[in-house]
Each structure stands twice: as structure tokens, then as C-alpha cells.
């Protein structure tokens, strides 16, 4: 990799979002993720790379797959991990987020992985702490490792991201997954289209470099990948769309609709799935679904991020 003049390390303390990551940085992470993936296939799924490092998973929102994925990623690199989870916000608990984080940092930890319902919470901590901060999802803002694992999965199955036609369907307004994917995919040269009811589209979305459409049947026709977003039930209650039934009929991805798709259209979903609403079970579990590949790649890509933020370089020696 040296010979190709590529960047070898991340010149940054934190991973907060994909909006400001360069193409080189994304490529570095994805390539390293690819080489780390093999570790999880071994009978002994562990390398000593991050021995002596401490990673704290600080989750202020419930999470199953992301928390487990970060924990496994750190453990497979031999880092020590602790998981602190609290569904209550720091304000309700009485201790401020900053105090909580400073106390954990005082125990001499190297990496803080944080999920928080407040947009910018990881940025707030990153600017005040010496430890590396990884954003594991901040409100509706970004979820960079999800974006990275999605790109790794697309790359694996499509060979390249440049020119790839990706359709994102669903509640983009409230989706950190959508934002991270849009920034990352655009940076890597993909063509991104969003299909959603206009009440779930944020102001001026096209300025992020995506096409916006409302007719799913037409949108599907020429795409290589379709990423279906989870529809949160409380959005219907707050009046953003009339009913789940209508949503499923208008924006749900089902086998009937996919008849119009190109042969080999790949299906992705960040999970957890509302089966039968945004995605029909036979599609979710069908031959073109990459949903479980995404989860597998999540561990690999998080290993790469943890490794690079701990000072590691892209061109690894064999373990």
C-alpha cells in the first residue's frame, strides 16, 4: 500500500462522522476491515494487537447489535473492554454527560465508544477529553461505523462503489444511518437516490448530493442496492404519516415490487427490522438480502477503526 502512496494512518483522534472523512481515509478503513474480517473466521478469534488498551462502550440508548459488535471487535484485538449502559439521559440521572465521561477517562481509558440520543454528544465529549471518541450513533446525526460497514458490504458484493446506484428508502429525516451512508457513498463516487414520504425528508436534502423521488416503483428499476430504513412507530403517532398500513403499501419493500428491479438487486437494512412494514419477511430473508453480512462486517470494520484510532497503521504485518 505504501507503494501506491495511500494514507497509512488516520490523522485524527476521533471518529465522529463520515461527513468530513476523505476518500483515502474511508478506503484505508475499508481495506483494513477486509483484512481483519478473516480473524473472525478463525477457530481462535483473537489477535494481540490492542493488548493493554482499554475500550469503554458508553451507551445511553438501548442497543443490541452495535454494542455487541464494538465489544467483540475490541475483544478480538485483545483490548480490555467495559460496557456502561444507561437508557436514562445524563440530565435525568443528575450527573452531567461530561462528568460521567470525565470520571471514566480518569480511570485511564484509551477509547470511548459513545451512543447518545443527543446530536453532537460525541463531538462535545471529543473536544473536552484526551481519549479517542468513536461515535456509535448520535441522535439523528451520524452513525459512521454503520456507514462504513454498509460500504464494506456493498464493496464486497459489487466490487466497487464508484458509480454504484444506491436507493435509500424511508425515514431519512430521523436517520443517522442515512446521513452517514449519504456522506460516505457520495465521497466514494456512488449515486444515491432517496425515496420517502416528503414528511420524512429533511429540508434541502438534495443539497447533500442525492436525488429525491417519491415513487418507489419507478425508483427501484435501475438500482444496484436498496437500503431500507427502519420506520419508527412514534413517527406515525406524531403525525408524520397517516398510518402504518398506508406506509407499508406505499413505501414497503416487498417481492411484488421487486419484480421491476434489476436482476441481482441487493437488499440491505441496518436493523432492527419491522417485518411486514418497511420490509417483507420473504425479502429480508431472501437470496439477495445482505442483512446478516452487514452485521458480520460490522465487527471487522469496527476492529479497523479501533486499531487505527489506537495509533495503528494500514499496512499490517501478518498476525
Amino acid at each position, binding site marked *: 500500500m505504501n507503494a501506491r502512496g495511500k494514507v497509512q494512518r488516520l490523522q485524527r483522534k476521533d471518529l465522529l462522522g463520515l461527513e468530513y472523512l476523505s476518500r483515502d481515509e474511508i478506503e484505508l478503513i475499508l481495506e483494513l476491515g477486509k483484512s481483519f474480517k478473516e480473524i473472525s473466521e478463525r477457530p481462535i478469534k483473537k489477535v494481540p494487537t490492542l493488548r493493554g488498551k482499554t475500550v469503554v462502550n458508553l451507551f445511553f440508548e438501548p442497543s443490541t447489535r452495535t454494542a455487541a459488535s464494538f465489544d467483540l471487535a475490541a475483544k478480538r484485538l485483545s483490548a480490555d473492554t467495559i460496557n456502561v449502559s444507561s437508557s436514562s439521559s445524563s440530565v435525568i440521572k443528575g450527573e452531567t*454527560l461530561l462528568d460521567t465521561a470525565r470520571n471514566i477517562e480518569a480511570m485511564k481509558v484509551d477509547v470511548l465508544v459513545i451512543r447518545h440520543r*443527543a446530536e453532537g454528544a460525541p463531538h462535545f465529549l471529543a473536544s473536552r477529553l484526551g481519549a479517542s471518541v468513536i461515535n456509535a450513533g448520535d441522535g439523528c446525526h451520524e452513525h459512521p461505523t454503520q456507514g462504513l460497514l454498509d460500504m464494506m458490504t456493498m464493496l464486497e458484493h459489487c466490487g466497487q462503489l464508484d458509480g454504484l446506484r444506491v436507493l435509500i428508502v424511508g425515514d431519512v429525516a430521523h436517520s443517522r444511518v442515512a446521513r452517514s451512508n449519504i456522506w460516505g457513498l457520495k465521497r466514494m463516487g456512488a449515486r444515491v437516490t432517496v425515496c420517502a414520504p416528503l414528511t420524512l425528508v*429533511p429540508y434541502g436534502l438534495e443539497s447533500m448530493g442525492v436525488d429525491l423521488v417519491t415513487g418507489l416503483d419507478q425508483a427501484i428499476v435501475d438500482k444496484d442496492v436498496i437500503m431500507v430504513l427502519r420506520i419508527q412507530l412514534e413517527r406515525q403517532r406524531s403525525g408524520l404519516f397517516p398510518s402504518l398500513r398506508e406506509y407499508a403499501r406505499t413505501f414497503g419493500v416487498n417481492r411484488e415490487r421487486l419484480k421491476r428491479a434489476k436482476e441481482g438487486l441487493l437488499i440491505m437494512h441496518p436493523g432492527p427490522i419491522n417485518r411486514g412494514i418497511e420490509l417483507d419477511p420473504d425479502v429480508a430473508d431472501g437470496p439477495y438480502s445482505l442483512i446478516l453480512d452487514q452485521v458480520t462486517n460490522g465487527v471487522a470494520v469496527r476492529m479497523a477503526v479501533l486499531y487505527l484510532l489506537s495509533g495503528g497503521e494500514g499496512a499490517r504485518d501478518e498476525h
Partner: protein
Amino acid sequence: MNTEKRTKGLLLKGGRIVDPATGRDEVADLLIEAGRVKDVGKLSAAVDSDRCEMIDVTGLVVAPGLIDMHVHLREPGREDEETIESGSHAAVKGGLTAVVPMANTNPPTDDQTAVRFVRERGREVGLTRILPVAAVTKQQEGKELTEIAELVDAGAVAISDDGVPVRSAELMRRALEYAKMFGIPVISHAEDPDLSADGQMHEGLVSTSLGLHGIPAAAEESMVSRDLILARLTGSHVHIAHVSAKGSVELIRGAKAQGVRVTAETAPHYCTLTDESIAETFDTNLKVNPPLRTQEDVQAVIKGLVDGTLDVIASDHAPHSIAEKEVEFPAAPCGMIGMETMLGIVLTKLVHGGHLSLSQALARLSLGPASALGIEGGTLEPGSPAHLTIIDLGKEWVVDPSTFASKSRNCPFTGWRLTGLPMLTIVDGRVVYTSPDREARGQRAKARASAKNR
């Protein structure tokens, strides 16, 4: 501080007298007697120096006392953030000879006792004049009108539920009608609370990329529109607080052209800062309501100040404790402090920046608010009250909240280099504030004088 009644006159010698009410702009002396402006002109020779104290203000601007018609002093209720005393010190340091605290204290300023308390505390502190606004509705709940006649009797200069809008159009109509009897304005915090619900910042490209829930400009514009229509219906005077959106400026301009009795205000941050500043930083000191909007809005607000659509610049000084602001963005309260930076920002960005003449800027800071509130002030004509702000237009300084007299530090302008600073603040003919630079200069002059005499 000297609280005894001044018997001696005060002569301000050789300053540049700028009076936006009359258009006067000339170097002259100004004589104060018995708390009023006695005369303006070449007076040095005619004045008996035994009966008169003299202050040399050569090279400085002598302006009508600045009035900040929109502040939050937090007393009673949040004395950890500001008190009437600390707020008064901040005010005179900012050159403000009167400030108008809003009613959203805890408990709210919604009865006579509360209004009297605020006025009394202001008098006891004895620095700037404290002219309270009383609530429109009891407890600011938007349900029942306060006893407006008695509130005015107790000394309220306007009524407003600022902090929250009056949601009911019917109640707003009645408040406007009732307030008309006393010649006071109803100050409208123009915000549709349904459109702004959960909002963290201006709804625009930046909120889209940050994922923060947006507050559309329409939340302000629709309520401005409603209140202009109600002012037209009732023939009453409505004052629109903290205008931030281009659409609001245009609506107010149109209403004024139709003869609606409306005055309007904006704040220094709506002329200088945009939502772009929040991107990447998530700096909670930039979280304010209404929110910082776009460059287009900033330009429209400045244009409104230039053509007089916006009559007033007020700080909307809103102190918050560091603990409350040092949190993740959505958890932080809205508001920024501004009394000590307002004049510097206006002079640097709007006057030196080439948008407003000095006289226009001083009008928006003195005559404008005096007219909007129907109180004396905003002029230096003989007979007018001797509230004056003496300004060094060329004084360069850097905004450093650690030096502020305010108890709070939530200032969005930290580190800004500004040009223009108040040197003396005079209330009722009494010098209530002298800048440290000026004091040092006075001591050096005294030392020189005594050296000469020896």
C-alpha cells in the same frame, strides 16, 4: 458609589455631540444641571467652574443614553445566573442607561408586588434605570390577562409573555385592546409553538446535515403575521421582539406601509451570526431562540435596520449558568448574554462595517427604544433627561467573558476583536460608570497636574 443628590452641574467639554433625534453632529460642550441637559454649544467660557464639575471628553462621542429594551435579569428565581445588581453593573459597563427586564422570572413578574420589587431593587442598586416589563397573562400561562392597569400603575413599561408566545389569538387581541388604554405596547415573542416544537436550531441545510430538529422561519413569520393583523384590527401598538427572519422583516415593512402601529427589534447576533457557526462545533452558546438563521436572513435584518423597518437593537441578554450550557446541544437552554458586547458589535459590524451611519446606529439603540416604549430619552436637546453614553469609537478590544460584570459567561462573541467601547455612562446627570482605561488616564492626568503645581 456616590448616591447623594448632585447639586453641582456637570460640563462635558469638547465631545462630538451626536443626537439622532435632531440630526445634530458637531463638536460642542454639553452642560447638565439638576439631572437634565441644560445647554449644548460653546459653553466652556460661560460656565462657572466652581459650580460645575468638568469632564474633558475631547475625541469621544457624546450620545443619548443607550436603552436595552430586552434583557433577562433572572431575579427573582435564578440569582445564580444574574441579579438586578450584577445585571446593572453589566448594563452600565455596556453603556446602557436603562434596561428593560422581561417578566419570565420565577415567580413571573405578573403582579404589582413583583413589578415594584424589580423597580425597587433597581433603585437600591442605583446604577442603570430598571424599567420592568410585566406579563401579559398570569403565570405566563396564556390563559388569563394580568391586572394590566395595576401593573402599569406599579411601573411596568410594557407587557409581554416573552420566552413564550401568547398562543391564543383571542387573548392577544384582548391584551392589545386593553393595553391601548395605557399607551403601552404589547411586546410579541413571535413564535408558533407547534411549528417550533422540539426545535434546536434554524431549519435549513445545517440542521439537515446535523440531524438537529429544525425551527422553520415560518414559526416566527406566521406569528408575526398574526400579531400584525391583530394590531391592525385593534389599532393598538404591537412591538415585535427579536426579529430574526427575512420574512418577518418583509411583513413588518408591509404593515408599516399600511399604517399599522408596529415597532420592531432585532439583536446583535441576528445581524452577525448564522446557523453555519453551529456546524461541527455544536457550541451551545450559539443556541438561542429564535435561532441563528442564514446569511440571507442576516442581510435582510441589516436592511431592515437601515431603512427603519426595525426600530430597535436590543441584546436579549439571557444569562445561563455554565453548568446548564456545558452539556450536549439538545439539552442546553436557549439564550446568550449581550449587554456588555452590544455597542461594540453594533459599532464594529454595522457602523465601521459600513451598513449604518453612527447616527442611525445610535437611534436604534436610544431613540428607537424610547419611542417604542413611549418614554423620555433618545435625545440630547436641552430639557431632556441627562442619560448619556460617552463612547470611544476607535477603542480596540477583545471580547473576554472572564472580565464581564455579568454573572454568566454564555457569550457567542468570545475572542472577537471589536472597535468601539463606552467610556462613561451617565444616568440622571450622574456618572455611574467610568471605563478602566479612562480611570487610568484620569489618574495620569492628575499626577501630571500635581507635578506641575509643585
